[in-house]
């Protein structure tokens, strides 16, 4: 029995009828899914910028004056061996004085008997950083002999991290909200269609049609509409991103595989929405 061909004919016939409702629903879906796409691109890029920002983080390790110069090299070597550390720069007392004078003006230390500025190391990092990692590293460093103080822009990083967290969770929330709207849209459209087809459902059931026969065209329509709407949205975004160039940053896009998975998931969401819309007519 060619259930598939019967099903396909049903689906094609179903999508062909109520063209205005189908088109209206499709456009609403396409716009909603486009919002998700834009939001997705925005999150990826914010995340990328956040990572770039964290890569500029540096940690300053102040060395006690009592640590003999001979131990400085050993300390520098052990700092360089820390996994996340990309580079270690030694700042001598003289270097520190030059930097300070560079910032605040020459002769600022002239009235002092000796250079009070401590020797220090500046660490730069590689890979993804977070507060926890930096705090852990600070604790480790503070235990090393000769380390007097460790400083990094904790408050600043904390703010950036808070912002990142807010954007991420906000993203999840808005994403879930938009998916819910997709579900509602599909459910309502199909409820309207099914209501107008209630008499036909009744006749089909009288002839012995089962839920599968009744539901298949609606599920297929939900899946195909949402899938095509999702792909259309991405085509538009990719086209526009090709045409626009940004001076200060490169626009990041999700990988094609992820877009495909997203489109299929959108399809299944559309299918679920369709099912919710007509399930009462299946009983």
């Amino acid at each position, binding site marked *: 029995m060619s259930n598939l061909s019967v099903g396909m*004919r049903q689906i094609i016939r179903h999508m062909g009828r109520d063209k205005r409702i189908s088109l209206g629903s499709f456009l609403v879906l396409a716009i909603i899914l486009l919002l998700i796409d834009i939001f997705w691109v925005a999150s990826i890029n914010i995340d990328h910028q956040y990572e770039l920002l964290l890569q500029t983080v540096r940690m300053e390790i102040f060395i006690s004056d009592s640590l003999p110069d001979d131990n400085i090299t050993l300390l520098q070597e052990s700092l360089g061996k820390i996994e996340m550390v990309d580079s270690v720069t030694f700042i001598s007392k003289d270097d520190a004085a030059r930097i300070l004078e560079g910032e605040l003006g020459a002769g600022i230390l002239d009235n002092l008997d000796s250079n009070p500025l401590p020797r220090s190391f500046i660490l730069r990092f590689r890979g993804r950083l977070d507060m926890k990692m930096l705090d852990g590293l600070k604790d480790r460093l503070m235990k090393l002999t000769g380390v007097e103080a460790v400083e990094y822009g904790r408050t600043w990083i904390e703010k950036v991290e808070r912002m990142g967290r807010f954007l991420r969770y906000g993203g999840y929330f808005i994403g879930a909200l938009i998916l819910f709207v997709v579900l509602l849209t599909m459910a309502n459209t199909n409820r309207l269609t099914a209501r107008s087809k209630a*008499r*036909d459902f009744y*006749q*089909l*059931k009288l*002839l*012995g*049609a*089962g839920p599968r026969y009744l539901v298949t065209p609606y599920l297929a329509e939900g899946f195909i509409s949402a899938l095509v709407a999702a792909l259309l949205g991405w085509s538009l975004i990719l086209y526009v991103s090709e045409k626009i160039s940004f001076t200060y940053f490169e626009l990041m896009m999700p990988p094609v595989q992820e877009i495909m998975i997203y489109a299929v998931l959108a399809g299944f969401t559309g299918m679920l929405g369709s099912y919710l819309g007509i399930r009462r007519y299946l009983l």
Partner: protein
Amino acid sequence: MSHKEVLFEFRDVDFSFGGQAVFTKLSFTLDYGEYLVISGPARSGKSTLTQMIAGLIKPQDGVFLVSNEAVEEIIASPRSLRRYRRRLGGVGGIYQLLSDRTVMENICLAAEIAGCSTAQARRQALSAGTKYHLSHIANHYPDMISEGEKRAAQIARAEAARKEIILADSPTDGLDAKSARFINERLTAYHTAGATILYLTSGPGPQSGPQRYLQFQDGRVVATNE
């Protein structure tokens, strides 16, 4: 189809709607392969009978058996109900054509639902359509054809799906004499081919073809030709 076996058995069935009795101790049987006419005035319960036979409603009291199985049991199982309904066809009353499908698609429909392949359903539909003089309107939608053609398409739909039982609810009401005669002839021919026909009418019903006549009044059988 085995003959002389009871297909439907109504035993003291009561059914009321909105506080008004529709059936009162309704009792009768219909055998496999039989052609039975039930006639009665309007609001005598004929349409309710069709609904009960189609499994849309259950007796409130008494017993309605389908091939010795209580209709409640059939209704309780969606699968059994579907299987049962695939044996039932109808003309008039609750059985109508789907408005958004052509005549040919409507005729194919029941065969497809019954499990025929698309090609087989189409073949059977074409054959039935020809027999019922519907070929010239095969691609017309129901709102484009006459009432007589609609009724013919409904029987053709049942025949294309090889339905064993036909519920004909006032199938000739509102038809001209020629169309009514054609419908009655087709029902008789389908019965001769082995189908069981239950014909409900407010008039006397067809004169040739049926084997038995029951007179309905106030939801019960008041007379029979036996």
